[in-house]
């Protein structure tokens, strides 16, 4: 219920945004300003459900949450080394460690890719630690790409400095 209201509210806001965008484009020779404005649009978990045709496994009450960045990995070691607080975690792993790792890092929400559903113990823990979990049938590459198209960026672009190497 709340979900649908929220989406239509967002659609209206998007409409206002697009109108403003057009006005900005027409009123200013500087197209970049308009495009920049457009890119700053807010993405919530509600939008992500739309974009990824996703199911909600945990956290129905938190779908208004906004996200701007994400990290994709099937290795929690890399998530711990590189993911930033407030990001989405896109992964094919489903064990309870994805939730504990997210809690340690203040990951905003988890998206399971390739149609994965998590075992009960993972869902219970996510509920307890307040971390929403969505599930999409898109592969990791498509999931990342589709979100990127909607303005979600990587939480880091490259790792390390110029001389960084990992064995």
């Amino acid at each position, binding site marked *: 219920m709340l979900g649908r209201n929220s989406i239509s509210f967002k659609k209206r806001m998007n409409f206002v945004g697009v109108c403003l965008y057009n006005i900005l484009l027409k009123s200013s020779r500087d197209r970049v300003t308009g495009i920049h404005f457009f890119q700053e649009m807010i993405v919530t978990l509600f939008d992500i459900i739309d974009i990824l045709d996703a199911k909600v496994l945990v956290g129905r009450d938190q779908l208004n949450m906004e996200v701007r960045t994400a990290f994709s990995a*099937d*290795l*929690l*070691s*890399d*998530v*711990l*080394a590189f993911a930033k*607080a407030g990001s989405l975690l896109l992964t094919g*792993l489903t*064990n*309870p*460690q*994805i939730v*504990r*790792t997210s*809690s*340690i*890092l*203040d990951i905003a929400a988890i998206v399971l890719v390739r149609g994965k559903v998590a075992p009960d113990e993972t869902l219970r823990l996510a509920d307890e*630690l307040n971390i929403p979990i969505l599930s999409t049938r898109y592969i990791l590459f498509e999931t990342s790409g589709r979100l990127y198209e909607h303005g979600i960026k990587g939480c880091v672009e490259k790792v390390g400095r110029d001389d*960084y*190497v*990992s*064995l």
Partner: protein
Amino acid sequence: MSFNYEQSFTIQGGNFTDAGVVSVFIKRTLQKMGIPSEILRRVAIATYESEINIISYARIGIIYIRVTPENIIINIDDEGPGIENIELAMRAGYSTADEKIREMGFGAGMGIPNIINCSDDFKLTSEVSKGTHLRILININTN
């Protein structure tokens, strides 16, 4: 604000089911104390990586944490195989993790380098077939 707290936790090697429980608890406890979030994050990552390492490689270990107004000291002591080549273990990407650890999503050889990144001071000593000792210091800079 002044912080004062200390506690020890025993970690059982091989107990993959509870991997991370202690670190999540420590993070919550420090969060309630009002430790700044950037510091909290570094403490949480350092304890979590250490906890996973004890569970993955050692028989048993103890995580001791002490919070003072100036800094946070974490001592991790385990009984286990120890580390033969410490220099190598500190390099990103070096790992001897087995299938079970990798299945869980760990074993990329990023843990110790990550702990070093989170620490203001870090010391790793080990004796082969006895155990491993880590001392992590994180300063609390409240200005």
